[in-house]
């Protein structure tokens, strides 16, 4: 089979899984829905490997393969096809997406076992994977937009999966609204591209762009900035990041899959995919890189102060995507995508471990209430530490090689790009610190009640209530319910986490400077026209960077050890000493409050004003007069008049007066 046939099959299996679960939920017994969902994604992964093999079979210059299934719309001034582009970049992405998704489906088979929305969960999850694969395989901008919107919709559905929980539905809506802002940016970028270049098709557009535009021409910058709106909304970069921490209201495997490993990296993919535009608009690329840098530092500081376990990891995700955005924006494409891959491994692992921990704590997510869990759950403690080591960039792990390659590239590029190297290392220090803040707070110290209970074999089950607000809940569908599952007891969860722990440690061997540059060489087929791709730093410079990075990671881990293990009172003392800064960080730099005051409240106020004043006073006022006038004329007539006919007539005339006035002004 050709590579593109495999590409279509990669899309077909998750879609089939979605349809089976969506329509067959009534007859699926027990865990069948979960296994069907997992199998569908697993088959997609096998086909992705097939696509990889077929692409590797081609010469480097001929690895961009397209295939059209049908013509979507073709008319004067419009030519859209349903086509996919199978090239090294998209193959790389489908491998990560389907691979990590398979493991997360596997984990969910056990984790969601006692939730009564089991089949619905897997239907949503399969639909998400289908959409995500469509997003990365799309061969033109319209199909990209379709995937982009579907992914946002799936994310909304999964965040609000516990649809009777108030905080979850609110978080879902917030995510959806911000995602739609991104969709709008992307739609307009696509139309500007179409207007300038006359096509939606990737390859056509990318080949035509360099001839059509001058460097930094206004319209290219506009296109890039619109693309960035789309990318930043999806990837939760400043200032559109506020939805991601709230998205943690969804089930934990959803956080692992969508809000860590796959969907949120779509923005990085988009910037990498449209690199010809960004190389034509270096200004836009620089803006993007600086926003990435600001985000990575901002989110890392938030992760230092937040106490909700999943939200710490969420801020860490925002921060790590900041690194990727910096990478693909400054031209370190291979490094950026390498980091995307290793991040997918260790972040999914961290979330899965967090899910296991939260289960052991009977739903509690506050790390202040955790401690001493390492004896109660040895496996989770080991794999979560592995995840934290990879996140911190501990020498030898996947995160070590990938993060430092971005920073080394920035240092090598010259000019002001050293800022990214310095900022990146500062971020890395913070990262190592907060990563081990989690580990030390959760697994070290005195065992809490739940931990000692678990050591005696009793898994805690609490009263059903919302851990965020304390609202009481029931155990019916639409709420998480009482029962929980931990990795130590459920084989599928154990398997998935073990596999990811392995990848988090050894994923880095794919690209060790000077030894093998597998990803570099492979992705090159998608960046043949790039002027920046070949600018590798020397191997010596790479290793210098790695040495600095490793030192920084060790310092960060040591600092965390000192604060949280060696001298347990240090943290509280620091908080007392820097209360203002701590409050500022705990409130996440007041972004939510700012949006609330500047956007949300005024909108509501305007709506209320329109409703109260315009509707009530103006229209009703007219009506009262009218009703008084016609009172006593007859039931039917009064019925009609009370519906404000005269008010409408007045508006009709008023509207016409405005139009007439306009035309009179035009004529004179």
């Amino acid at each position, binding site marked *: 089979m050709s590579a593109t046939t495999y590409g279509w099959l990669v899309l077909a299996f998750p879609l089939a899984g979605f349809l089976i679960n969506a329509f067959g*939920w009534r007859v699926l017994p027990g865990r069948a829905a979960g296994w069907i969902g997992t199998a569908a994604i697993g088959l997609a992964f096998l086909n992705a490997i097939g696509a990889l093999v077929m692409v590797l079979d081609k010469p480097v210059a001929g690895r961009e393969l397209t295939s059209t299934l049908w*013509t*979507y*719309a*073709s*008319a*004067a*001034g*419009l030519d859209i096809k349903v086509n996919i582009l199978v090239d090294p970049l998209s193959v790389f992405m489908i491998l990560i997406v389907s691979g990590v998704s398979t493991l997360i489906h596997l984990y969910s088979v056990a984790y969601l076992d006692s939730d*009564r*929305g*089991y*089949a619905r969960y897997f239907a949503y999850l399969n639909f998400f994977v289908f959409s995500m694969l469509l997003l990365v395989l799309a061969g033109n901008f319209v199909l990209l*937009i*379709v995937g982009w*919107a*579907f992914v946002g919709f799936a994310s909304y559905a999964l965040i*609000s*999966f516990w*649809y*009777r*929980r*108030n905080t*979850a*539905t*609110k978080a*879902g*809506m917030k995510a*959806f609204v911000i995602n*739609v802002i991104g969709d*709008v940016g992307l*739609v*307009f970028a696509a*139309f500007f591209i*179409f*207007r300038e270049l006359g096509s939606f098709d990737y390859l056509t557009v990318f080949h035509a762009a360099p001839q059509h535009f001058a460097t930094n021409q206004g319209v290219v910058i506009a296109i890039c900035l619109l693309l960035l709106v789309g990318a930043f909304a999806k990837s939760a970069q400043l200032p559109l990041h506020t939805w991601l921490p709230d998205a943690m209201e969804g089930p934990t495997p959803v956080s692992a899959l969508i809000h860590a490993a796959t969907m949120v990296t779509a923005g990085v993919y988009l910037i990498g995919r449209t690199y010809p535009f960004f190389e034509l608009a270096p200004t836009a690329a620089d803006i993007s890189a600086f926003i990435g840098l600001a985000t990575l530092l901002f989110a890392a500081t938030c992760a230092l102060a937040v106490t909700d376990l999943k939200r710490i990891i969420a801020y860490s995700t925002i921060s790590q995507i900041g690194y990727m955005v910096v990478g693909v924006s400054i031209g370190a494409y291979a490094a950026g995508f390498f980091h995307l891959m290793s991040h997918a491994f260790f972040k999914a692992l961290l979330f899965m471990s967090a899910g296991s921990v939260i289960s052991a704590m009977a739903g509690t997510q506050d790390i202040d209430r955790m401690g001493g869990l390492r004896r109660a759950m040895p496996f989770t403690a080991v794999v979560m530490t592995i995840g934290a080591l990879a996140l911190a960039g501990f020498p030898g792990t996947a995160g070590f090689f990938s993060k430092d390659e971005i920073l080394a590239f920035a240092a090598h590029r010259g000019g002001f790009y050293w800022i990214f190297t310095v900022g990146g290392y500062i971020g890395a220090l913070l990262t190592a610190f907060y990563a081990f803040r989690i580990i030390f707070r959760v697994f070290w110290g005195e065992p809490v009640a739940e931990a000692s209970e678990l050591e005696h074999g009793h898994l805690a089950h609490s009263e059903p209530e919302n851990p965020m607000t304390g609202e009481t809940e029931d155990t*019916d*569908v*639409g*709420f998480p319910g009482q029962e929980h599952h931990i990795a130590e007891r459920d084989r599928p969860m154990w398997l998935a986490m073990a596999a990811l722990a392995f990848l988090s440690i050894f994923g880095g061997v794919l690209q060790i400077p000077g030894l093998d540059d597998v990803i570099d060489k492979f992705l090159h087929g998608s960046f043949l026209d790039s002027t920046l791709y070949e600018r590798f730093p020397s191997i010596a410079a790479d290793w210098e960077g790695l040495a600095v990075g490793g030192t920084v990671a060790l310092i960060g881990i040591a600092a965390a050890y000192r604060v949280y293990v060696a001298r347990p009172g240090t943290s509280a003392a620091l908080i007392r000493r820097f209360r203002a800064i701590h409050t500022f960080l705990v409130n996440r730099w007041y972004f939510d409050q700012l949006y609330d005051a500047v956007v949300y409240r005024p909108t509501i106020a305007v*709506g209320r004003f329109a409703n109260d004043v315009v509707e009530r006073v103006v229209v009703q006022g007219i009506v009262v007069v009218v009703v008084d006038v016609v009172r006593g004329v007859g039931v*039917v007539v009064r*019925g*009609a008049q009370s*519906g*404000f*006919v005269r008010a409408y*007539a007045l*508006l*009709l005339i*008023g*509207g*016409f007066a405005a*139009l*007439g006035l*306009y*035309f*009179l002004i035009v*004529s*004179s």
Partner: protein
Amino acid sequence: MTFHAPHIDYAGLSPVIALTAGICAVLVGGVFSARRQRLVVSVLSLTTVAVAAGLCIWQWGEREDLVAGALRLDELGLAGALIAILAAAVVIPLSWREPAAERPGSEPRHGEFQALLLSSVLGMVLLAQAQNLVVLFVSLELLSVPLYVLCGSAVRRTQSLESGLKYLIVGSLGSATLLYGLAFIYGGSGSTDFTTIRDAVGSGLTDDPLVLIGIALAATGLAFKISIAPFHQWTPDVYEGAPTPVTAFMAVATKAAAFCVFVRFFEVALGPAVDNWQPALAVLAAVSIVVGNIGALGQSSLKRLLGYSGVAQAGYMLVGIVCASALGVNALVFYLAAYTLMNLAAFAVIVVRERESGYGDGIKAFEGLGRDRPDLAWPLTIAMLALAGLPATAGFMGKLYLIEAAVDADYTWLGVAIAIGTMISLAYYLRVVAAVWMRPAAEPLAPEGAGMPAMAGGSPEADPLPSLAAATAAPRPGTRCLAILVPAWLMAGATIFFGVLPSPLVDWASHAGGALTPFLA
């Protein structure tokens, strides 16, 4: 002076002739009494619309003037006619059990009901082809007068009477405004024929106050018919009060025909004055998008909600006219067709649900539909998602097409307005979807402590409430309405089909734009 009868191309006029003959036959069919009447009349009307549709398709591709230029036979007019005919064909089965046409214990009135409906279709077919001020006005009245009657046809319901009367009064005002405007244009240009007016306006009348006042008045009158804000105020009231099949018909067919003549009048007759009317219509479109979407947010009646949503959708479609390009007309015609499919699906569900639940067309009536009546829930869900413009539905392609036309015509800000309007609209369309799929929390008979209400979304796995389960088991009137379910599913299926594979519809719509190409930049 001798009178020369104009040459009449009977082939081109054949849809009009077929409809006229059909109306007479249907009226006569009304003499049958009681149970037989519905069958006879419906067979006659459905045959009529089928023949008329067939003749329209037969004439597809012809481009010529009919009856001394009074009518223009081209794809744009035929597209409008076909949409109106499709709407009528769907509405006829919807009306079968409607109290307006058949109330237990009294003489059925299918003959009158369907004859009026067909008369309105005839008006629409003529309007979509009108190429003369007089024909424009006469066919607009032919379209409107039967609708006034139909809105009030549920005579036992005051709301319906109110709706009919209200539509009559405000509608007459709109017609009067339009007529006044047409008079000004005639006065300024000295002709009632679109092409002659075009020549006259082109030769130095673009800034003539008389003509411009006429344009303003005519735009007001037409904007009234297609519910463009601020001339939309009647829409939610009349939509809510009228019998639902009539509302469905008004919502889609009137809009289609009126938009066709709007396009023809502005792009052909007033084409040379494009620089003057373009900004004004652009503002109207934007105002409509804002007013319609904001207005729909707080509605609790689904018909009112769809009324406001119709105002917003009319705003989107007006963008197609503002563009003044073939692409704009294509996008408009495509959107009209998509809009027809999605709205008919939604209204068909409302018709059924209105009869079997105690909540009328309130959103409450649709709660729990997902587990209760999936055969009704799916078409409604598809319609709502399509109206919201979700990918893989016709609504997505329609919006994409309109935005592209707007960007192409340098009206990017209007494209942005469409996008923002779409964002706002998600709030109320998704609210309906949520109501459909969440468990019926508002059931008055729900036992105490039946559980937490759903916030949004829902799940088919939820337990049925005991009271509801009992209610589901009992047979309810109108529960097995194949006559309504089949059209609802057809429309919903077509919405999805043209979302996944829109190219046939795009081709079809681009013929309509092609018909006006000589007049467009």
